[in-house]
């Protein structure tokens, strides 16, 4: 199968600060690849280089074997770039004409794409009236013009509510099923689970890449003990560390994730220890490891 994207030894520095260090990455045609990493890991810089928005300090990027392949790429940056004063249809027509389609072709394409992204009912409404999810779907719709083969999505689900996120990810999955090659930049493990392959990037280096299941296997993580607490202090974290393997305890928004070989067996002891220090628990559960857990296990860094 042909390489849709080949990145070879790409480095990028801002002044003396290196952001990407000799990154090499291959994505096959039709593949859905998710690149996961924490803020500042270099993932947005990498996708900007692929999209020609940013120049690499060193290295080369080829898309379908070409060095300059702007007509094959559709890049959807984090920002909402569609015009709020234009309608959904007018926005798509604008971008279609920028890709070189005539006005009539652009109008026909816009109508068909709006149908595909399930926005035909609001085609004539101004984008300022759209919800965040609708607006993001419209912007990803710019990747459906004939001729664009590689879709670059930079953190597209940020700020979307759960239902809009699910709908959006369903649309991306459909696009991939219809042959579009996708590179998804994300820090959300659940989004990356959809991909056929996931790469972890940390401090400008791709530290691991494989299918989501293989990454989980390779990490050696079993089930994870999750605890939501009313308070989060160093004392609580220290108490939990004694029950984890190699002191692997991840602090999350609502509590902690404890990585240990037999979570079911340590659970009663964890409850007792937390009671002893007066820490109230709101929820305790044993879950399968997520890709965020795998990233943490591999790098000891929290992904979000």
């Amino acid at each position, binding site marked *: 199968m042909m390489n849709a994207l080949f990145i070879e030894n790409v480095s990028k520095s801002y002044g003396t600060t290196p952001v990407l260090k000799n990154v090499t990455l291959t994505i096959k045609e039709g593949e859905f690849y998710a690149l996961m990493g924490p803020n500042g890991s270099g993932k947005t810089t990498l996708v900007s280089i692929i999209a020609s*928005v940013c*120049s690499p300090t060193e290295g080369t990027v080829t898309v379908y074997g070409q060095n300059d392949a702007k007509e094959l790429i*559709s890049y959807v940056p984090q920002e909402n*770039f569609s*015009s709020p004063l234009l309608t959904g249809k*007018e926005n798509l027509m604008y*971008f279609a004409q920028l890709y070189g389609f005539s006005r009539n072709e652009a109008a026909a394409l816009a109508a068909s794409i709006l149908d595909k992204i399930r926005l035909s009912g609001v085609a004539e409404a101004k984008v300022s009236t759209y919800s965040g999810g609708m607006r993001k779907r419209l912007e990803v719709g710019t990747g459906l013009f004939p001729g664009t083969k590689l879709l670059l999505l930079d953190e597209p689900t940020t700020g979307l509510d759960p239902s809009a996120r699910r709908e959006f990810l369903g649309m991306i999955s459909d696009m991939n099923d219809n042959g579009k090659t996708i590179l998804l930049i994300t820090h959300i493990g659940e989004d990356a689970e959809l991909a056929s392959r996931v790469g972890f990037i940390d401090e400008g280096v791709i530290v691991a890449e494989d299918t989501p299941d293989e990454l989980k296997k390779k990490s050696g993580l079993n089930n994870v003990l999750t605890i939501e607490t009313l308070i989060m202090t160093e004392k609580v974290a220290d108490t939990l560390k004694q029950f984890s393997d190699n002191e692997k305890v991840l602090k999350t928004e609502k509590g902690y994730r404890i990585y240990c070989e037999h979570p079911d067996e340590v659970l009663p002891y964890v409850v007792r220890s937390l009671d002893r220090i007066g820490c109230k628990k709101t929820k305790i559960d044993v879950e399968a490891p997520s890709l965020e857990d795998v990233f943490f296990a591999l790098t000891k860094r929290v992904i979000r």
Partner: protein
Amino acid sequence: MSQMTAVLEKDVKEFLRDKVILFFTFALPIFFVLVTPLMWGDIPPEAVPPLKGGLSLTMITFMMMIAGQSNLAGSVTADRERGLYLKIISMPVTPLKEAMGRICGVVVFTLIGAFGVVMLGVAYGAQYTYELISVVESLGFFFLIAIAATGIGLIIASLIKGESAATHTGIALTLLTAFLGGMFVPYSMLPPFLQVIARIHPIPSANASIVFLLQGAEFVDYDPLILGQIGLTIGESCALFVIGLMLYSKLCWRKM
């Protein structure tokens, strides 16, 4: 060509749907057309219609200045703020074609307003005395105003961050140019240093040329059609346009 028309269409639609833009570009000149004659004191009645004609022509220039210097600058900075340039840099579009589309958008938008101002002027008693050749020559000067104003607009958009700051800078510059450049006050009433500004600045100078051609020499108080004056106006307008385009291509389309 489709790229230029896409940008033109987008900008014109955005301008027409933005109430603030509509107010400053259309309502303000119309207000001046209607109100300024009320302030004319001891003017013989027979001089009023041609004066109203000259005023409405000046308001077309004013409209073009607002559209080029303020609306264009605001539109570019708003697009930059919301990340549009990240998207279009990744697309097979050149800065020159995109900029030309934006400039054509300013011209089309101004033409829509100009039609309204002329019609309103006629309804309000403005009189235009012209020959076909003068109209053609005047269109040349309108073209110079368009490229000078859009050049200044692109310079503002490239150097000033934030839609509001860029828009207001454009409006401030337009009002300053109009008042200091003698567009609202007869040239003969300006102090000598402002008379110099009126002749050196390409927009008031081109505007004086239009009024001179379409309304007559008596409405201008100096001859803006001498060769040196025309050369200066053309040179400065082109220079502003080229500088604006260069800065726009370099700064707004800058890769990270």
